């Protein structure tokens, strides 16, 4: 955690579930079933890899968690709130608890790297005085200090991805949801980002990360949830990327 203000995870209750999917099915308007009968409970402070082939439903699961999409069946609960019953007004508050790295980055094209990152703090009403140092800290963490004043269009793919990661971390979220955050990064930086996520996880932040990087998943021996055609086919702690481990 950049600021490390939840020292040693003292306030974390590891049995309290923060992300809960209860028998969730998601059918897109065009009839495609992206998720089928998915049950998933992520307790606070957990570190979960979400793996599965392309099109297995990983991103869809994450979209449900931030209420970008609503489940067709079943309930999605985030930190105690049933997202389907959440009044519109409260949606932003729930989203601010989460740090999200989107697979397609979703950077604001008319804002610089610095402004894009600061945005996640501005929406929470943080004062300018506190925004600047926080942004500088995460910029340094992801190695973008030099690119701070460039626009997304002027960044390399990996730099865009790192901007998205920095934005997800800047507001000290209690939950980090990262959708293939290292897809455009070289192995070295990928490992650095992983170290960063592991460190904040140790401070009590719940991390859910979708990835295709078999090396990382296999090496870390964390909890692995595998999807196949919308169903959870594997959920084991200490598993590898592939079924064989």
């Amino acid at each position, binding site marked *: 955690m950049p600021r490390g203000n939840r020292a040693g995870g003292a306030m974390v209750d590891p049995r309290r579930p923060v992300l809960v999917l209860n028998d969730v099915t998601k059918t897109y308007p065009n009839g495609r079933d992206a998720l089928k009968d998915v049950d998933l409970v992520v307790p606070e402070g957990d570190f979960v890899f979400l793996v599965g082939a392309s099109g297995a439903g990983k991103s869809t699961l994450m979209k449900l968690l931030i209420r970008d999409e609503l489940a067709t069946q079943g309930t999605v609960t985030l930190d105690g709130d049933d997202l389907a019953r959440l009044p519109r007004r409260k949606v*932003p508050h729930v989203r601010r608890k989460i740090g999200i790295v989107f697979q397609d980055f979703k950077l*604001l094209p008319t804002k610089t790297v610095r402004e894009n990152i600061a*945005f996640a703090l501005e929406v929470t009403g943080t004062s300018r005085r506190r925004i600047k140092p926080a942004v500088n800290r995460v910029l340094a963490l992801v190695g973008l200090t030099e690119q701070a004043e460039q626009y997304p269009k002027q960044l390399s793919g990996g730099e865009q991805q790192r901007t998205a990661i920095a934005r997800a971390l800047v507001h000290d979220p209690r939950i980090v949801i990262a959708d293939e955050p290292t897809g455009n990064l070289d192995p070295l930086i990928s490992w650095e980002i992983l170290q960063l996520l592991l460190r904040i996880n140790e401070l009590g932040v719940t991390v859910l990360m979708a990835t295709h990087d078999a090396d990382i998943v296999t090496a870390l021996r964390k909890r692995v949830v595998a999807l196949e055609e919308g169903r959870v086919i594997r959920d084991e702690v200490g598993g590898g990327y592939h079924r064989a481990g």
Partner: protein
Amino acid sequence: MLSFFLFSISRAWQGFWRNAAMSLAATATMTLMLLLLSSFWIVQAGFLASLSYVEDKVGVVADLDDNIRQSALTDLQARLAAMPEVRAVEYVSKEEALRRYREQRSAQGQDDLTPFLNDNPLPASLEVKLRRPADYRTVAEFLGAEPIVAKVQNIEDTTDRLVSLTNFLRTFGVLLLAVIGSIVLFIVINTIRLAVLGRAEEIEVMRLVGASDAFIRWPFVFEGALVGLLGAAISLGVLVGAAEPLSRFMVGFFSILPINVGSISRDVTILVLGSGLGLGVIGAWVSVRTYLIR
């Protein structure tokens, strides 16, 4: 609250310039539409002044009997002047009537027939100016009942036609202005909508990152206000630049009309600023709403 306000304004300013192509296109449309609206407003004002001027000319003329007593005349004049419908009363003597008749003939380039007359056949008369042409009948009937009045000249037809014409023109002008106003309203809102449409994805991203509706909306609304105010400023600049030569030209043509330039230019300034600001704000509000309510 104030800091949010200032924050939104600074974001609006940024948004305006970072999407300069769209913002300037929207501002250009805004400017032209405000110019259109204000031109029609000005024409309409001039037009209404002309109508009032014409209506001023409507009056009731009552021919008097020859050889009436001065006291009866004075009495009638006083009672007329006391009527709420009457603006002014003028007495025209027989001699004055003949003089006017001669003048009129010669002005029309027609022969003077009076030398062939043995006697002055024209009666003395009272010319009554009205406050509203529609009151013609009331005053004419009042005069017709007076003993010293020989005859009330019957221009009822003409008056009726004039009244209905001016009423028609007035309604028509207001209607035209309303239509133009609606067109302007729609075009401006539509233009701002198009500009916001081009930024729909940006709004979506903001929402996904946890921005509240207000946080997204207000910068857009202020940006709309900026477009409106900039458009209004340019329009007023153009109008001021055009005012001098135009009014010189207009005065030559309509010098008789009692147009109050001061009050018109004040009205136009308010109109342009008000509708620029209002349209910008409403347009942005409505357009952003579409992307917030989902």
